[in-house]
């Protein structure tokens, strides 16, 4: 077997190196963009702006965790914008009616709404084999419609929300914003879960080879259900945070936000065909997208160009992935020395 050693060391090097390369590249890109933007607008790297950037990115990051799990299983979730709206509205309406509601209960309430939403989607995809794109496209409209119904088309605005509620998002502990703390806690938990627990690794397995997962007796359906349920719960949490941060709940809250989340996830190197992706990559992708969203207005890029840029980012990230894979396959073929 000794003559296979050099070949193996090579292939391992190739696959590890592409991952490292991507993350280094992302980091470099982040640095470069920060520098360029700072040159154009000195207000970029100020404390207030950075805090604002981190607060927005925190919500994006929390959602990206859920989306990464969904995409790892070869799925997709377009409904999270609607879930944010629904859970945000529910918790806002509750606070409006019961101003003395403890903030922690509001958060739990939102997460519960999200969990219910995610569970329904999970059953539809896992048990009834409905394509994720179809299930989430359909339910997206259902939940947004529900949001409209329960709100009667009216907004809930800041004067109807208790100070405690709003402080969920605006408050801080030891000078670090609540949102950032929540995001960090979630990421630490997630990194542990996805790398060091059995279920976490099974999520990768299900995406890497769903047929093998079925045959080897992995609880594939339960895992698929789980990722949508978790995504929903996180979206529910994000809903409460969103509504508290912007001090307003409307039926069109977070419309289209799912696309930003997908962009961040894909940018972070999570493969759209499932089975691979790293937490470090996800963090970098989220930060990069957060920076883009924050920096573009500062350098006078019209907010109306944002959607276009996001679309290009997703397309570029996904196409690059394909080209890189093709290249490494070509290299492996060349090594065959036929």
């Amino acid at each position, binding site marked *: 077997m000794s003559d296979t050693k050099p070949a*193996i060391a090579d292939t*391992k090097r190739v696959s590890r190196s592409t991952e490292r390369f991507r993350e280094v590249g992302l980091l470099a890109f982040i640095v470069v963009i920060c520098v360029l933007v700072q040159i154009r607008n000195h207000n970029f790297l100020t404390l207030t702006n950075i805090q604002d950037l981190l607060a927005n990115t925190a919500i994006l990051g929390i959602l990206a965790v859920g989306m990464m799990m969904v995409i790892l299983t070869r799925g997709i979730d377009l409904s999270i914008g609607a879930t944010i709206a629904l859970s945000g509205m529910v918790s806002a309406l509750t606070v409006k009616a019961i101003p003395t509601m403890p903030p922690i209960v509001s958060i739990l309430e939102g997460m519960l709404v999200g969990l219910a939403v995610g569970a329904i989607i999970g059953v539809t995809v896992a048990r009834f084999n409905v394509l994720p794109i179809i299930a989430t496209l359909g339910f997206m409209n259902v939940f947004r419609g529900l949001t409209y119904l329960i709100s009667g088309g009216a907004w809930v605005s800041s004067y109807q929300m208790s100070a405690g509620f709003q402080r969920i998002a605006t408050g801080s502990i030891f000078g670090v914003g609540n949102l950032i703390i929540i995001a960090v806690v979630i990421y630490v938990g997630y990194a*542990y879960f996805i790398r*060091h627990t059995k279920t976490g690794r099974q999520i990768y397995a299900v995406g890497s080879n769903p047929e093998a997962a079925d045959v*080897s007796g992995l609880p594939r359906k339960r895992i698929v259900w789980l990722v949508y349920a978790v995504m929903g719960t996180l979206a529910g949490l994000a809903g409460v945070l969103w509504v508290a941060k912007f001090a307003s709940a409307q039926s069109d809250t977070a419309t289209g936000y799912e696309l930003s989340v997908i962009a961040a996830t894909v940018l972070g190197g999570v493969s759209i065909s499932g*089975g691979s992706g790293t937490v470090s990559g996800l963090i970098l992708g989220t930060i990069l997208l957060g920076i883009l969203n924050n920096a573009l207005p500062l350098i006078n890029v019209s907010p109306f160009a944002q959607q276009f840029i996001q679309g290009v980012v997703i397309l570029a990230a996904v196409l690059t992935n394909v080209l890189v894979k093709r290249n490494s396959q070509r290299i492996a073929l060349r090594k065959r020395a*036929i």
Partner: protein
Amino acid sequence: MSEHVLELKHVTKTFPGVRALDNVHFSLRRGEIHALMGENGAGKSTLIKVITGVYQPDAGEILIDGEPAEIRTPLDSQRYGIAAIYQHVTCYPDLSVTENIFIGHEKINRLTRKIDWREMHGRAEDLLGQLDADFDPRTSMGSLSVAQQQIVEIAKALSANARIIIMDEPTAPLTNRESEDLYRITEALRDKGVSIIFISHRLEDMYRLASRVTVFRDSRYVGTWNLSDVSRDQIIVAMVGREITQFFPKRNAVIGEEVLRVEGLSRVGYFKDVSFSVRRGEILALTGLVGAGRTEVCEAIYGVTSADAGSVTLDGTELGISGPSGAIARGIGYLPEDRLKQGLVLDWEIFKNVTYPTLGRFTKFGWLNTKLESDAAKEHAERLEVKAQSVFDKASTLSGGNQQKIIVAKLLTADMRVIILDEPTKGVDVGAKTAIFNIMNDLAESGFGIIMVSSEMPEVLGMSDRVVVMKEGRVTAILETAKTTQEELLNAALLGAAGR
């Protein structure tokens, strides 16, 4: 304790329309390597699927260590210590070797529910070391070679404390040297007390490893013998049910001009410098061991994939084929190796399959005419003696041999000059095999040039005029069939041209 670690008695398994196992028996002694032989479709894979819990038998019982065993799911089978290794490894390509080995039974710290990576990687290295493989278990499974993946599969079986290991055609994708390694590992497993069922088409595998052999034929159990008590011929008779000299129908074809010439055809990573020619009325066999690159060469000629260098010339004109549609238009037809995935649309009726490549011929004023289609389908199907009730039967209801005939019918609706048949008798029962040979002879006699890819030496010797032997992507010999022997062919397939 029973001397038989596994027994199957009176096991029957039926699927709609077909009886896959008919009252079969099988017994495996403790610590033996037991060969299971039979032609394609004899019931071997169904037996394996019953043992591993993928299928539940409709009748009969399974005994493990003499006690009745309930095997309803793959998990049950694993709990009984049964593991199977197939020629196509199903794994999680994005996960590491260690994870692939331990998936489903990861080493978890009881308190923290955390995966103990250090211990798992260490144990994986251990297992790999026992099998004399020293690649890093942290490598992703997808970047390993087939042989290495198989070794990981065996390591997986060992880690699950498998006492019964089934190996289904494990040597098929391996080179000679890798097969030797596999033999060694298998014997070492047996010496450790593992009982092994070994399925292989290669008689040499069987003679090298096994102590007993069981033969299945047509879903029935034929018999079990000690290898020392039975001759090669007797085994073959048991497998096919008649004398060894398979009847290859005679042919009266006039061999004419060269119709297809392949020169210097190369595709990086698959084959290099392949050159040969085919003449009208001739059957050229393309043989070699699995993995030699024969199918890849044919797919390059047919245009499914593109070659990186070299040329294909048809009747003197060089072809710049941009896909199978171009090939068909020029007169090259292809019967693919994987009948179900590549050859037919199973959900479709026979007539739709037959007319698929040449739909343009069945239109009247631009509209598809079902009458024209079914007439043509009927004509071809009857000529090829397809056993079907109606042209409106679905292709999925046909047997393997008849499905093959439908694909041939497909090719005949166009004007062909060269027909490439890739393993035309694979998975086809004996009666249908003769029918297909007759069809091939008819085609040759009608003036087509035929390329037949085959791994069966008797078939190659019995049906072809000339043989091209390939090994590891290169042509190692081009021989006149009448002047060569099985040994010479095998030599060229195994050892290759001088100097390599």
